[in-house]
């Protein structure tokens, strides 16, 4: 007779288990929603000490580093686009990641960009970015990319051109360093901030980026640089137009029609530039291109 | 006679008991014993008497608190002694993931036989214990009787001269017990020494040249089963049936017991013929007449009763 009760309990299980799982799953989503609203108010990293975690990992620290790296990427990826987001945990997460595995280059490169980028793209903490990359330079001394990233930080965010140039020079001395590092070092020493230098640096960051977010960010910067350069050029043409016609042009079409330009001036996204009421060239607000960090309009 | 097969001298084992291991319990007290080559020797006693302890001491599974022992002239300390002995522990358990053949083969490997000889021995001894068909069955599927037989096989697969068996008959059905008895007799016929412990006295009486009786860790007596108990007849046992319509003679009414259709009565030897006469007069049918002798069991029960009454009996020696 145990055969009968066995069949009955199997049937009960086949019925009840999926139902219960569904109930549990929907309950879990409720719980997650609940904790998310709480978490949004105050995000917590329970253990912030990298060295402590390294000890606790009992020798599996590089695996734990990979886990924290994944968390860092997810943290950034899910929060980008949230208004007012300051990415406060990005530094602790990357700090832990690089303490657990000091040779995880990709974490340093990620931090170099997104710790230093202004809100809303990053955490707006170039000082922390510098600290992170300096650690990377110490941990991976033979790789030119770490010094190169450090040089970038000095040049782009800290505007310390002397330091930037010196750092790029150091980078150029590392094994397998590409030639352009020396060129950049010289350019920065000579001219400080310039379009061509910036473009070269961002192009290199774009080319060597392994992380899609970093690549995308570099691309946006290149677009921004291009737009700024275009706008400077357009202002000059607008001035010529004014000399000829007594007023600033209202659209780039007018510039084209006047023969001063051989085509309709478009921004890197393909959308035509517009002119503001003061006659200054601008990006169309509808354009996806953003000028994030206007360069000082230094001569040439 | 030559060297005795087994020589035990003053063998003593104390265990520390209690939570703090302060108290000492003496489970074997000063055992001195000799077993000759070719003897079938029974080691008797109730549970807890120290029989298993003695065997474990001989096997060096536990170490003596005092005393020595030698088997075939070699001290029990000497690992080479184990080449010449076989051992079957009480209620044995074997690696249940192995088949019978694999088990025997495993144990045989400890003796360094070349491959062909080892294989041959395994087959031979499987047959010897009647397990030729079950050789490739996993031991976890074996019945108790089959396990016991495998146990004996592993104890003799290397043709040892002295075989130690701890309660070899326990838990077996009558068929199993018969088989084990036959194996022991066979070993004896081959001139080997068999030392086995048991609390089944009828087996001991039937198989053993000599027995030793152990009680409370102390040796109570050693000798041939007949020496330990006198061979004196102390009465006669009668079995008879009454014919329908006849009544039991009044003289016997008090002492006769009815078992089914039969009656049993014990009478002193001198009264045998008068009682037979009485039964003949009422036309009872006589089924059997047999003499009664004291058995090892009686001796045993007397010993146990005496021990209960006075837990520290003085002296040892036969009877």
């Amino acid at each position: 007779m145990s055969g009968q009760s066995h069949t009955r309990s199997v049937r009960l299980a086949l019925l009840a288990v999926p139902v219960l799982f569904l109930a549990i799953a929907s309950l879990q989503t409720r719980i997650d929603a609940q904790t998310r609203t709480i978490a949004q108010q105050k995000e917590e990293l329970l253990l912030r000490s990298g060295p402590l975690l390294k000890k606790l990992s009992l020798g599996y620290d590089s695996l734990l580093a990979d886990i924290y790296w994944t968390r860092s990427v997810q943290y950034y990826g899910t929060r980008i686009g949230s208004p007012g987001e300051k990415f406060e945990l990005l530094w602790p997460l990357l700090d832990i990641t690089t303490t657990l595995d000091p040779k995880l280059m990709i974490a340093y490169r990620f931090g170099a960009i997104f710790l230093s980028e202004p809100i809303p793209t990053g955490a707006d903490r170039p000082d922390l970015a510098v600290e992170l990359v300096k650690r990377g330079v110490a941990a991976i001394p033979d790789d030119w990319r770490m010094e190169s990233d450090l040089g970038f930080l000095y040049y782009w965010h800290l505007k310390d051109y002397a330091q930037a140039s010196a750092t790029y020079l150091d980078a150029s001395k590392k094994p397998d360093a590409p030639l352009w590092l020396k060129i950049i070092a010289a350019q920065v020493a000579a001219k400080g901030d310039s379009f061509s230098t910036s473009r070269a640096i961002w192009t290199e960051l774009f080319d060597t980026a392994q992380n899609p977010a970093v690549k995308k960010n570099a691309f946006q910067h290149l677009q921004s640089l291009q737009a700024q350069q275009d706008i400077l050029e357009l202002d000059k043409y607008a001035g010529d137009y004014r000399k000829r016609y007594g007023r600033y042009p209202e659209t780039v079409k007018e510039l084209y029609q006047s023969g001063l330009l051989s085509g309709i001036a478009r921004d890197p996204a393909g959308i035509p530039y517009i002119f503001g009421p003061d006659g200054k060239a601008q990006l169309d607000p509808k354009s996806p291109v953003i000028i994030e960090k206007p360069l000082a309009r230094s001569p040439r | 006679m030559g060297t005795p097969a087994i020589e035990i001298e003053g063998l003593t084992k104390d265990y520390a008991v209690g939570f703090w291991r302060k108290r000492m319990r003496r489970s074997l007290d000063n055992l001195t014993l000799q077993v000759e080559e070719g003897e079938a020797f029974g080691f008797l006693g109730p549970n807890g008497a120290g029989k298993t302890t003695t065997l474990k001491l001989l096997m060096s599974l536990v170490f003596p608190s005092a005393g020595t022992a030698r088997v075939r002239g070699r001290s029990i300390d000497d690992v080479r002694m184990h080449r010449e002995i076989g051992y079957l522990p009480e209620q044995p358990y074997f690696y249940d993931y192995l088949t019978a053949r694999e088990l025997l083969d495993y144990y045989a490997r400890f003796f360094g036989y070349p491959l062909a000889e080892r294989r041959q021995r395994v087959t031979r001894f499987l047959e010897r214990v009647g397990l030729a068909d079950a050789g490739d069955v996993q031991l976890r599927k074996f019945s108790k009787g089959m396990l016991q037989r495998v146990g004996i096989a592993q104890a003799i697969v290397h043709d040892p001269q002295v075989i130690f068996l701890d309660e070899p008959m326990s838990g077996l059905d009558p068929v199993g017990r018969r088989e084990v008895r036959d194996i022991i007799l066979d070993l004896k016929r081959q001139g080997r020494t068999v030392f086995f412990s048991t609390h089944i006295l009828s087996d001991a009486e039937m198989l053993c040249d000599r027995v030793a009786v152990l009680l409370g860790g102390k040796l109570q007596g050693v000798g041939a089963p007949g020496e330990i108990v006198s061979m004196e007849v102390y009465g006669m046992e009668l079995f008879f049936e009454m014919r329908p319509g006849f009544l039991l003679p009044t003289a016997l009414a008090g002492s006769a017991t009815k078992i089914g259709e039969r009656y049993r009565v014990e009478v002193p030897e001198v009264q045998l013929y008068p009682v037979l006469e009485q039964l003949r007069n009422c036309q009872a049918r006589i089924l059997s007449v047999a003499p009664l002798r004291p058995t090892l069991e009686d001796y045993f029960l007397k010993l146990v009763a005496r021990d209960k009454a006075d837990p520290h009996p003085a002296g040892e020696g036969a009877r």
Partner: protein
Amino acid sequence: MSAIPAVVAINTFREAVRDRVLYNLIFFALMMIGASILVGEISIGISRLVIINLGLSAISIFGLVMAIFIGVGLVSKEIEKRTLYTLLSKPVRRWEFLVGKFGGLLLTLTVNTILMTLGLAAALYYVSRNFLRADASVLVAVYFILLELALVTALALFFSCFSSPMLSTLFTLGVYVSGIFSKDIRDIGMLTRNPAMQAAAQVLYYVLPNFHNFNTITAAAHGESIPLSLIWQNTAYAALYVMLVLIAASAVFSGRDLK
């Protein structure tokens, strides 16, 4: 030298196989397959790194669990099941039995580890499409893990000679974790101003089995080469320490009454 330990070892290996211990490999394989497929999506740019980290960590953890849980049962199971009684009635010395048990578990662990390494190699190939020179350091890392497992097995065996499986597990784990932190324990001792404490800390450092010597998972993941001198030093360290532990175990076990 007698062949008795080998006889016991082969049987111990056979027991592990029939106990389906090796089925853990299925779980490992599934995990590596899942990881190889997912790793490209989730951890951008470091797929090779993650596969090696995950694979080596899993080999280490699975191996440790096996070494400890089977190790503490090596002796106690035979005593509990009383199969040891029959065994010791044969011409076997107690130390031969212990060495054989140790050898059998080590053999099981070695086979298990080799099979797992093959799985790891397959996953690595799937992710990188070729083998790099740097992958040799992965093999060294695996070898070091095996040395570690040998030492843990010896410790588990030692404890199982005189304590219950539960206590043996705790002791073995305790010694293992202490062995990982032994440098820190010493450093803390050195921080005190007390010369007696400092001396004690130094002594403790040399006494504890320094498991941190064997950890090269990070280096292997980054493809760094591991110096040859470290390889033979670690081998010698493991061999000596294992010998020490087995001798101690024999000493304890040889005098033990088997109830």
